[in-house]
């Protein structure tokens, strides 16, 4: 599904973010990428959704070299990937419904399709009673759920979550991870970058440890060992 082949990323000023990364994520897997701040977790994820390009090596998404996707086709490519961020990245001037609907609008879905699909996905994340609220009227956990609903609305084959629990209390964090596990159970590949020990240990899934831009360990059913 996703393959990193001898991938290195060097930022200007000779800052090595990733060095010689070889990684294979199979369809339907749940992978936690852990490591200290600056270990290269976010860069690794950005390479998947083409926000960054590798300095050397290749990143494949469904056997396609991501770096060959032309810039103007990147938005279309991203519709295959659901993304969840630490800061939620919600449009503050849109309601919960509108935020989720926006992902469908950009894809040219009809109003009828939107009004059928959005309530369904909001029901899955448990926010069907807050459709008309604005992000600022929600708790952090609820905002992250909106972000997840938006990521899921296209039925993507992969969900990439970059520190989704970073701004949340333990209870909300666990709810989000449970939701990710549930989504994974439905067949969606999940890549979770985090340094939340609790989350990784409770998930009990494959753990890839990054240290100074290199893969320090890759354990099938691992614990947080950093």
């Amino acid at each position, binding site marked *: 599904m996703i393959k990193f082949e001898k991938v290195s990323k060097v930022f200007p000023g000779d800052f090595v973010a990733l060095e010689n990364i070889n990684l294979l994520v199979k369809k339907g897997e749940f992978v936690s990428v852990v490591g200290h701040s600056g270990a290269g977790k976010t860069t690794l994820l950005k390479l998947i959704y083409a926000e960054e390009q590798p300095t050397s090596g290749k990143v494949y998404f469904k056997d396609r070299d991501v770096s060959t996707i032309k810039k103007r086709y990147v938005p*279309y490519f*991203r*519709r295959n990937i659901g993304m969840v961020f630490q800061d939620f990245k919600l449009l503050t001037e849109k309601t919960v419904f509108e935020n989720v609907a926006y992902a469908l609008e*950009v894809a040219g879905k009809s109003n009828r399709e939107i009004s059928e699909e959005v309530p369904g996905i909001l029901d899955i994340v448990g926010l069907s009673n807050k459709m008309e609220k604005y992000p600022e009227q929600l708790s952090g956990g609820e905002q992250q759920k909106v972000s997840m609903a938006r990521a899921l609305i296209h039925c993507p084959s992969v969900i990439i979550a970059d520190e989704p629990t970073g701004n949340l209390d333990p209870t909300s964090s666990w709810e989000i991870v449970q939701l990710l596990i549930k989504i994974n159970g439905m067949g969606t590949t999940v890549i979770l970058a985090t340094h939340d020990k609790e989350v990784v240990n409770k998930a009990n899934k494959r753990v890839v440890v990054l240290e100074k831009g290199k893969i320090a360990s890759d354990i099938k059913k691992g614990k947080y060992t950093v």
Partner: protein
Amino acid sequence: MKFLKIWRTFKEGLKNFSRHWWLSFATIIILTLSLYVVSVTALLGIAANSIIKNIQDKVNISVYFNPEVSEKEILKIKDDLKIYQEIKSVAYISQNQALDEFVASENNDPIINQALEEIDENPLLPSLVITAHNSNQYKIIAQAVEGSDFRDKINQINYEKNKATIENLNKIMGLTEKAGLILGTIFLLIAVLITFNTIRLNMYSRKKEFEIMRLVGASNLYVQMPSIFEGIFYGICAAVSAMAFLLITAKLIAPLTKGSLQEGDLLSFCFQYFWIIFVGIFMLGVVLGVTSSFIAIRRYLKI
């Protein structure tokens, strides 16, 4: 599908326009000022040109013939003069016509009438009144007439008398054209820069929004379209306000320009060319608004 996307981005643009009303208001004010300054400069330039043209039409030179030259001969010379490209028109004023005009211009002054009766003959000379296409051509025309083979039939050419006026007029015309062009260009440049910067600040305040849109899978054009529509709305609002201010200015200046314009005064001038001026301002406003939005947003679409 395309129509659906255009309709959605139009609605989004309208929503943004009213939602960020304070930013929209500030942008419209700046754009209005820019359009107003540019259009006032252009209008004054056009009006000055029209005033000068009007004066120019009133300027002419008269070639007076000796009393013994027959009307037939003068009319032949008139036909000969018409060949010159520089000459716009030639009018023949007979002795009698000249006398009638002179008496009328003196308001039938009894003393003058009495004097004329005493002379018992018409003291005025027949003449040809020459109007040129351009006031700077009078010198050449006067020289051509003086150097012609009918020179000995001419009593006097009044070019010298009008020379100073004509030369002044030429100078003013040249100066107005240059000043108008330079001022217009400077103001236009300032208008473009100020408008661009205002819209850039407007877009800067929403850069996070654009980033999210891109990450969610919106194409560049889909992110840009609402802002382009916003640019159109700015342009429309600013054009209407600038036109209103322009008419108010024209009304205030109108008394000063009464009679100097062919159209009456500056306000009548504005009304006569209302649609041309409005469409001009409107196009400039929309082009400025749209291009500024388009360029300003581009830098936030590189994710």
